[in-house]
């Protein structure tokens, strides 16, 4: 039995664990790890199933058929030779290590293409848009905080990081926990003060707090109150609480839950700066921005000006090519890397690569630099990205460009500008990232949460089904009536591709990045019942 101590790759908390391999790969707990003390979240606990998962891809696939590596590289070289640099795009996504992202940048440089795209919906907007003067928190500071402000669902983003936050919350009677969110999550249940804002308007509540803390910035608090739906007194009280003693501000930079990612990041940092607090942005992966936005890439692909697309990073279950079948009609050559076999035959080339747990890497966590050690040799047939790219061109690592620091005045201006885009629709569907399991293969996300008044209006109850139709697709969900979501709002998990397809790809106006924005939808009661009727056939008995 072999045991390897490594760092969990599934969020940036940097939890250490021990992976043992006897007859199967299994997680064991590193009790002396400083960050997590052996604790792991459901994603961490199930991380090892990726290594010997039955759906692993073991050979290159060309239009759904197995080919040899030589043929695959030949196809890729042909694509590079046929398409001009302007007709080529390089997309990178989550699932790459930081060194591999630098390689993707180097490959785009070697090809000479200006079309370098981050294909992941949650790029590291917190660290890309850093506010001047913000102080990063250490774990000790989180534990010692007298007042903690959490924006968004931090407990779901990094469940293990909830440990120090709760230690601080229960350490003393005078300690306070404030939560700003649109949904009454479990962490809101732990809070002393819960500011329930309208979906997608967290930034205005935070801006209102900044306005109370610093009158000199010229912030219209009345307008913030009107936009976020939180009372002015609550905002002022929350701001006052932030001034009491060591304070920590944690903000979830999370897929689906963040509508204005740049403003969300900047204004959370601004609250921290004005309250003299330390700050941590909780996100899933560090994926820096590319040179052009995803929306621009999509527009180019659909207009037929791209001939070859190289897509590096998790193909399944994290990124998009499967959601963009129309790409096949316009793009002649498609090269993608994947850990898993695609569900359906994808046009173009799919190359097997080692999973996160089979790669050596170092990376930045919230609390410092972590290193990851391979728990197993690369899966049979899989080749590391460095080798694939090395066979295609002479590639050297290139540092991604960092966005410049913003000032407080710029942050305020950007957030005020975002207020123009707030409008009300009847039913809003929210994407919610749940921490259970990895991607699509641990939990089936077929549950929709809606409020009691909405359920009564639709004439449905728990366990019945509704049909949800958005601009880009429709699906059926099992109803779960809850007081956690406000009237007119429904929430679904967005780990599953099927659910993600219900959200039209929205563009963030500042960064040009894709976001999963609250989407207007049509909802109707479905004819499907919770328990399919069992037909008894007399002959069969």
């Amino acid at each position, binding site marked *: 039995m072999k045991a390897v101590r490594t760092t969990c790759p599934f969020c940036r908390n940097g939890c250490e664990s021990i992976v043992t391999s006897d007859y199967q790969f299994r997680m064991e707990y590193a009790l002396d790890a400083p960050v997590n003390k052996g*604790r792991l979240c459901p994603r961490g606990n199930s991380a090892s199933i990726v290594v010997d998962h039955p759906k692993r891809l073991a050979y290159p696939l060309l239009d759904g058929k197995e080919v040899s590596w030589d043929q695959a590289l030949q196809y890729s070289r042909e694509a590079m030779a046929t398409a001009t640099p302007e007709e080529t795009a390089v997309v990178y996504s989550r699932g790459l290590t930081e060194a591999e992202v630098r390689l993707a940048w180097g490959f785009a440089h070697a090809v000479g293409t200006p079309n370098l795209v981050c294909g992941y919906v949650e790029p590291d907007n917190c660290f890309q848009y850093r506010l001047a003067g913000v102080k990063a928190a250490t774990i000790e500071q989180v534990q010692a905080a007298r007042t903690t402000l959490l924006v968004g669902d931090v407990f779901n983003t990094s469940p293990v990081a909830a440990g120090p936050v709760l230690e601080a919350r*229960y350490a003393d009677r005078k300690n306070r926990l404030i939560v700003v969110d649109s949904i009454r999550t479990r962490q809101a249940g732990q809070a002393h003060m819960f500011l329930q804002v309208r979906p997608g308007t967290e930034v205005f509540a935070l801006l209102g707090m900044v306005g109370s803390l610093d009158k000199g910035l010229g912030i219209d608090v009345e307008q913030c109150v009107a936009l976020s739906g939180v009372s002015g007194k609550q905002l002022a009280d929350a701001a006052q609480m932030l001034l009491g003693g060591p304070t920590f501000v944690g903000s979830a930079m999370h897929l689906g839950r963040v509508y204005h990612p740049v403003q969300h990041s900047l204004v959370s940092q601004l609250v921290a700066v004005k309250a003299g607090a330390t700050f941590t942005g909780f996100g899933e992966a560090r994926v820096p921005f590319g040179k052009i936005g995803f929306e621009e890439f999509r527009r180019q692909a659909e207009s037929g000006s791209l001939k070859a697309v190289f897509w590096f990073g998790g193909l399944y279950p994290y990124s998009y090519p499967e959601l963009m079948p129309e790409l096949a009609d316009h793009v002649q050559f498609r090269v993608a890397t994947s850990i898993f076999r695609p569900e359906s035959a994808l046009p173009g080339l799919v190359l097997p690569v080692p999973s996160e747990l089979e790669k050596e890497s170092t990376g930045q966590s919230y609390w410092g630099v972590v290193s990851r050690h391979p728990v197993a040799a690369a899966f049979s047939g899989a080749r590391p990205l460095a080798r694939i790219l090395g066979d295609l061109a002479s590639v050297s690592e290139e540092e991604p460009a960092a966005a410049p620091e913003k000032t407080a005045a710029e942050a305020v201006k950007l957030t005020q500008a975002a207020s123009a885009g707030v409008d009300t629709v009847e039913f809003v569907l929210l994407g919610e990232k749940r921490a259970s399991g990895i991607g699509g293969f641990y939990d089936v996300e077929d549950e929709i949460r809606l409020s009691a008044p909405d359920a009564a209006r639709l004439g449905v109850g728990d366990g019945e089904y509704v049909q949800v139709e958005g601009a880009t697709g429709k699906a059926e969900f099992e109803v779960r009536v809850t007081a956690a979501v406000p009237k007119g709002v429904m929430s679904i998990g967005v780990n599953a591709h099927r659910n993600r397809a219900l959200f039209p790809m929205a563009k963030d106006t500042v960064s040009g990045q894709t976001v999963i924005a609250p989407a207007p939808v049509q909802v109707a009661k479905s004819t499907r019942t919770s328990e399919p009727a069992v037909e008894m056939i007399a002959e069969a008995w």
Partner: protein
Amino acid sequence: MAKRLVVKLDLCIGCRACEAACRSRFKGEARVRYGEVSETVSVPMPCRHCEEPLCAAACPFKVIVRDEQGGIVRQASFHCVGCRSCALACPFGVIDTNLLRDVTQKCSLCSDRAEGPRCATTCPTGALQFVEEEKLAEKEVGVGFAARSVHGRRL
């Protein structure tokens, strides 16, 4: 010294890491279940390892026995026929009526593991704790803990 598994309701964030840890060990079905008190409050439901276990009394083949030394109520033999009597008898509903490989799944407090149950080790916030029986009084739910917080926890 006998140790018991206790739940600190205040600290549970409903992430279900306990379930995932159990499931990844026992391949397929978690032996620690999970309940919701309200939308914002959830509680893990591990086996209580009762002093007079009703599941053991209900078992027609004496498959479930109480180990007097460790205080563990365990499925001691392979003769379980999957009759679900134990699941029906359990007053806390912690034994799942769904069978895995035609056998009911019963928590053994991970007695194969020196450090104690995996669910308690992995709990991200320390809501599930594995403590010695002597220290149980101070670890009990609500005693010396929820009382310390100003508003308690809204249920």
